[in-house]
């Protein structure tokens, strides 16, 4: 049975229980589910919101490509990702990744791999809205995110 990644880009929030249920309901072959949720941090109350811009079409396509690699590489039974766009306040969800597999390490690796590549390869850009009303500017790419890719080899 081929595994089809379920990838969505949306403005609205997501329900983690419901998303896990979509991958696990009625199945008895899944032994491990790992979820990753990325949230907007307040940066010590200096941030009022992040604004997320994306490239419609390419965002879905690129995350799907990476998700398919994760399925093959780690032998996942299912993978889904939801990435929000628009204005997101501190404490709110930005991104959800779920990986399922028979045994635990594959699910951990699958979700971790997808997040590392999503951070640097998915066409999203974050703008800071500062609490004091000043222009917070666009978030710079993070060298640590590029470095994180190195653990997955070539």
């Amino acid at each position, binding site marked *: 049975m081929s595994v089809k990644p379920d990838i969505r880009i949306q403005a609205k929030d997501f329900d983690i229980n419901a998303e896990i249920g979509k991958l696990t309901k009625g199945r008895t072959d899944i032994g491990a589910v790992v979820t990753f949720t990325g949230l907007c941090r307040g940066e010590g109350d200096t941030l009022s919101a992040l604004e997320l*811009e994306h490239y419609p079409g390419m965002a879905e396509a690129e995350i799907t490509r990476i998700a398919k690699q994760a399925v093959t590489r780690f032998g996942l039974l299912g993978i889904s990702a939801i990435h929000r766009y628009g204005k997101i306040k501190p404490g709110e969800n930005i991104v959800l990744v779920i990986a399922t597999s028979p045994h635990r390490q594959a699910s951990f690796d699958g979700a971790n791999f997808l997040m590392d590549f999503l*951070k640097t390869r998915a*066409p999203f*850009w974050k703008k800071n809205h500062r609490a004091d009303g000043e222009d917070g500017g*666009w978030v710079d*790419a993070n060298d640590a*995110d590029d470095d994180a890719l190195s653990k997955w080899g070539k």
Partner: protein
Amino acid sequence: MTIKLVYFAWLRERFGMGEEQVELPESVKSISDLFDWLETRGEEFANVMEHRKIIQVAIDQEHVQDSSTLIGDAKEIAIFPPMTGG
């Protein structure tokens, strides 16, 4: 050749538009040629193209790593800063 150019994040803000249809001169064959041509389109374009080393490109929604890549019969070229999703 008519092609759609798409801009994101601070490129979009600097150019004052998210996309445009442009008529590319015959001489523009590669991404590098495209950058050279954009540079000639006014001060804002020239300023942004100073950052060409970090600017990223997608041809018809697929990442392109090498600026010598040929544009061919692409319909849409997106240029944008490094991505900061997740």
